[in-house]
């Protein structure tokens, strides 16, 4: 129903180019995610002190997740304001839940 009118070949070409550009970013993102994973596993296998390892691997995980959300799932593109709001609200509720269950539950 929408863009039937502006269906010129040029436009298609332009889209393709843009998609290709995006795809490069994606591959780069993927490479970094693999690298992060390697670092995380490496730290644990090397037996670095847990005081250091645990915060670092948690941060690496968080960054990886942001990569997934912003690049692979395109949250960096326009039209994602509401999804971003909801995901962050979800993350807020999620952090509260995890904090509660991992701290004030005793035993």
């Amino acid at each position, binding site marked *: 129903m929408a863009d039937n009118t502006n269906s010129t070949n040029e436009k298609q070409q332009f889209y393709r180019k843009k998609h290709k550009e995006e795809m490069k970013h994606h591959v780069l993102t993927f490479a970094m995610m693999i690298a992060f994973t390697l670092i995380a596993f490496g730290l644990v296998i090397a037996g670095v002190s847990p005081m250091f390892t645990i915060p670092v691997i948690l941060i690496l995980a968080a960054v990886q997740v942001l990569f997934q959300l912003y690049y692979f799932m395109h949250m960096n593109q326009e039209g994602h304001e509401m999804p971003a709001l909801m995901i962050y609200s979800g993350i807020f509720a999620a952090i509260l839940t995890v904090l*509660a269950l991992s701290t004030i539950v005793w035993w």
Partner: protein
Amino acid sequence: MSATVKKAGFGATLWEYLTTVDHKKIGILYLVAGMFFFILGGLEAMLIRIQLIKPDNDFISAQFYNEVLTMHGTTMIFLAAMPLIFALMNAVVPLQIGARDVAFPFVNSLGFWLFFFGGVMLNVSWFVTGAPDAGWTAYAPLSIFSEGHGVDFYAIGLQISGFGTLMGGINFIVTIVNMRAPGMTYMRMPLFTWTAFIASVLILFAFPALTVGLFLLTFDRLFGANFFDPSMGGNVIIWEHLFWIFGHPEVYILILPAFGVFSEVVPTFAKKRLFGYSSMVFATVLIAFLGFMVWAHHMFTVGLGPIANSIFAVATMAIAVPTGIKIFNWLFTLWGGSIRLTSPMVFALGFIPTFTIGGMTGVMLGSAAADFQYHDSYFVVAHFHYVIVGGVVLGLFAGIIYWWPKMFGTMLNEKLNHWFFWLFFIGFHLTFFVQHFLGLMGMPRRYWIFLEDQGLDFFNLISTIGAFFMAAGTILFLYNVVVTQAKGVKVSGDPWDARTLEWAIPSPPPFYNFKQEPLVRGLDPLWIEKTEGDGKIKPAEPLGDIHMPNNSFVPFMMSLGLFIAGFGVMFQGSYWILAVIGFAITAGSMLYRSFKDDLGYHVHKEDLEDEKGDGSNG
């Protein structure tokens, strides 16, 4: 399609309702099912009050009493209040934002049928090994040790109806985000739509915690998991956290739409725009936000320690601020208005002092140290009934009566409504006001009997008498409904002289709602057109074909499948076959749905031109 079945037989009507994806019809389904469960929960309440009419009563047995109190709470919250709120949301929200339908008509129908089958499943337990008996909170390990299958029905039934609620919630968020009419900006949305929106967001983030909690409970009971079994390293406090992480936002899921109803009713019958609209919106959002950070005030006596208790105590008290803002905004909407005491307005006016008391006791309960006395006593029972009945139920009745003409095209008898209000309102205060004192006098909640010589006899008697008043009021309301529908006198599109978009179209609205998308020029669009224009909403588009979704029987089948599978999972052994059949029905329905293109149909321009759709209703 639905337009053609105007004078159809019973079978055709039934089929229409079983397959409908029209939000207005789904609203009616929710209303009927919700009222049915409301009456069921009310009967359970009467059993409780009759048992407590005098000390040492032996009207019902201890075990049965626990089943009744569990089912009363569960039914009222999940099977009465929730669906009635969805009834209003379905009936009103798309009309208020000028949408032809909800975002996912199919999912909307699926949501209803899941809720319905979940509710039926819960109540089937009465006839099979007994109802759940561990309280609506189902605290582990009591719920783990509970014999029979009662708690299994609770876990699986709520799981199924919880999925329905979650889908309904997502549906409304998307509807409100994506489907507003031209000019209907966020800050022009009626307050009921706003509260429906925020409540849906709360559903989205609160129900998953319940889903997980119920999963753990089910797995503990049926598959030998050890989450809540202390002897196997389980931790019973996890359940309490998960339950209340869901449970506290749930309270706001219920009360916010009720606030929304009052924010519609009060301006309409005070003939004045809502005072402090933007602060009302802000307060709603703030309540929702804070509502996620206070759940542990249900757990002050659990032994979380003074630090956690203090944090949650202060956070809880903070909620009183936005709630107070709302109360004063309503009062100042009335200030300087021209107040008509119609029945919805009387409910709204009855709500204000009642809810103020509920809010006050809420702050008292939030005071952690003092809560050591209030907790799990009748004081708490009184408090949450002041909030849930005095807030939610009064709001629901105000909303049902207010939008009844829009839903059914008829007008409930005003005189009977006033009688209903006074019986219910007086009965309510008789029942619950004295319970504050009962609690402080040493009566814990969920007590099957209380003993003589404890000074508790008199107030309990008063409380029971009050309950009968409430029952009488409810019966009167049902009578009113039957008489009104039997007479079937039609009303105009705008019988209350109201302000918002839904009143600009006929009552009941045509199945496509708006012939042309309306153009919204401000807050209270109909009022603007009445005072500044010719009283008619301007269209935002020329008359054209309207795209409508097809009816579908698939939602019913998918829900039925889960319902059947639930029994198989519960009884196991040779009953596993039921699980296989049930899941096959559900999965098959899903595949059918995804393999068959459902593109809907069109209402043609020419057909629309014949029909009037300007609110004059012929």
